[in-house]
């Protein structure tokens, strides 16, 4: 297992897109984690004489409608994005993993029932469902996470199910069975490690989607509580004052674009390495 990891990382570092992706992601993570140390200002401090300032040596990315430093707010926003993203991806990934393996291993009727369940959940357009649910739940990060989990675990479930099904009938599993391996051994030693490859690719590709949903919900005013410096709230402030300054929108969209680019490139590179059959025709 450890030699496999070595070769995987070794191969990733030779792919320029993967290197770029890792650099972007690492930079964003460092900025989010050390936001308090890096930020030049307190993200709530208002500089009322410098409202709607353009980028300058004093305010690197300009200021917002209350004269708050945009760069400092975006750094804090990175924390929110990462917290929501990681929590939601881990929860929905685990639910999907368990349900997908149950569907793949269980009797035919259970498989069909779960498939129908997955398909039903995927019939909800994400943001529209988020709006409908947000009307029923208190505004806050928990609501955002619940909405994201509901809309995304079906995707994991489907992928894990397909993978489990095809493994279940493969020869090496039959051989294990014939040798009298226990159910637990087959599931945890043979199926699970083989399911994890596509699972992690999906998780890497899903994380920026989740971060975008959080930003989108905050932009629509059904995400983080008012005053919280989510990337979506910064964009909303920029949208509300689009005729006063273009910088809030320009700066607020940048981290979102970088995050999605980074994770999409990483997912692509991982897929190329882990699953040569799915290679994007390169």
């Amino acid at each position, binding site marked *: 297992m450890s030699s496999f990891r070595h070769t995987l990382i070794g191969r990733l570092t030779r792919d320029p897109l993967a290197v770029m992706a890792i650099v972007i992601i690492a930079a964003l993570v460092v900025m989010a984690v050390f936001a308090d140390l890096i930020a030049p200002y307190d993200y709530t401090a208002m500089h009322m004489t410098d409202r709607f300032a353009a980028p300058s040596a004093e305010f690197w990315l300009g200021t917002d409608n209350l004269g708050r430093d945009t760069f400092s707010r975006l750094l804090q926003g990175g924390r929110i994005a990462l917290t929501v993203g990681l929590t939601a991806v881990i929860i929905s990934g685990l639910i999907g993993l368990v349900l997908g393996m149950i569907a793949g291993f269980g009797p035919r009727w259970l498989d069909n029932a779960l498939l129908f369940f997955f*398909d039903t959940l995927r019939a909800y357009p994400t943001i529209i469902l988020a709006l409908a649910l947000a009307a029923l739940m208190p505004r806050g990060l928990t609501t955002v996470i619940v909405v994201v989990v509901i809309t995304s675990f079906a995707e994991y479930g489907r992928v894990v199910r397909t993978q489990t099904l095809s493994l279940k009938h493969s020869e090496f599993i039959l051989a294990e069975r014939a040798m009298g391996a226990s159910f637990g051994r087959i599931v945890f030693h043979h199926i699970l490690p083989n399911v994890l490859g596509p699972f992690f690719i999906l998780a890497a590709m899903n994380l920026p989607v989740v971060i975008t949903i959080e930003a989108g919900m905050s932009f629509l005013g059904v995400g983080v509580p008012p005053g919280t410096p989510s990337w979506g709230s910064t964009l909303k402030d920029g949208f509300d004052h689009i005729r006063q300054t*273009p910088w809030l929108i320009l700066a607020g969209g940048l981290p979102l674009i970088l995050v999605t680019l980074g994770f999409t490139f990483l997912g692509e590179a991982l897929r190329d390495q882990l699953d040569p059959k799915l290679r994007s025709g390169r």
Partner: protein
Amino acid sequence: MIQYTIQRVALALGIVFVAISALYGVMIALPGDPTSVLLGPRATPEMRALFREQMGLDDPLVMQILNFWGRVLSGDLGTDFFRNRPVATAVMSALPHTVALVFGAIFWSATLGILLGAFSADRRNSLLDRVTGVISVAFIAAPSFVVALYSLLLFAVTLRWFPSIGAGEPGDLLSRIQHLVLPSLAIGLAWVGYVARIVRASMLEAMGESYIRTARAFGLPRRRVVYNYALRVAILPAVQVLGVGIGGMLSSAVFAEIVFSRPGIGTLIYTSVSDRNYPVVMGAMLVAIGFFVTCALIADLINAALDPRHRKTQ
């Protein structure tokens, strides 16, 4: 094929039924007393009692859901208590705007995506192909509401090439189209990337097939073989992707409609949610989910009709 069609249609109907019933159930079961939500804080106890009886709120949950479907099937989506009009009217006047927006996005992604994809398949491994590859991924990665905001800022506010607000004058086709350009591009851009990649991959696959080689051996011009024969095969998977993608486009449409202040299902749901106007939210959700499931079904059936292999992949 007939059996397959019946199966898929039944499944689609089942999905819509369960998805909407679940949502309706949650809506009436969760938020405390629906009468205070729908009638507002000033309603008298008598008004509440009357409303309870009218809406059948004392019936068991299953009965309420079945009654809801009974009304829906007879064309009654409920009443918009805030504006005192049938929900169906509100939804039906918003729907054409959203449908136009989504099909505008499909237009962008199909034309630009197929062009880019065919072009890079034709010149595989050239510098242009590589650049297109990176651009496609970048398009896929750009969040649609950021694209909407950036294009609003650049093309509408700064350059003033396109209008920034509304859906255009009723009856004036040119103005309607002008108002459609930016929002549909914002939604479609991500799908340009997807379509380009899929068209490229399936064209490269097709160009390795023997019938393409035969056509070349018969002396047909290369350009014609590539763009007529190989491209034709490659469009199918693109149709499939766009059909399934309509769900995502509907989500993006919410942002595009709000950013460009367009009327539509997204704006309708957004304002109804902020007003806690649940009957309208339900009606609009029903139409949005129905629209999405229908489009995915049609894309699926087109594929199955054109490629019999597809019918077995369940």
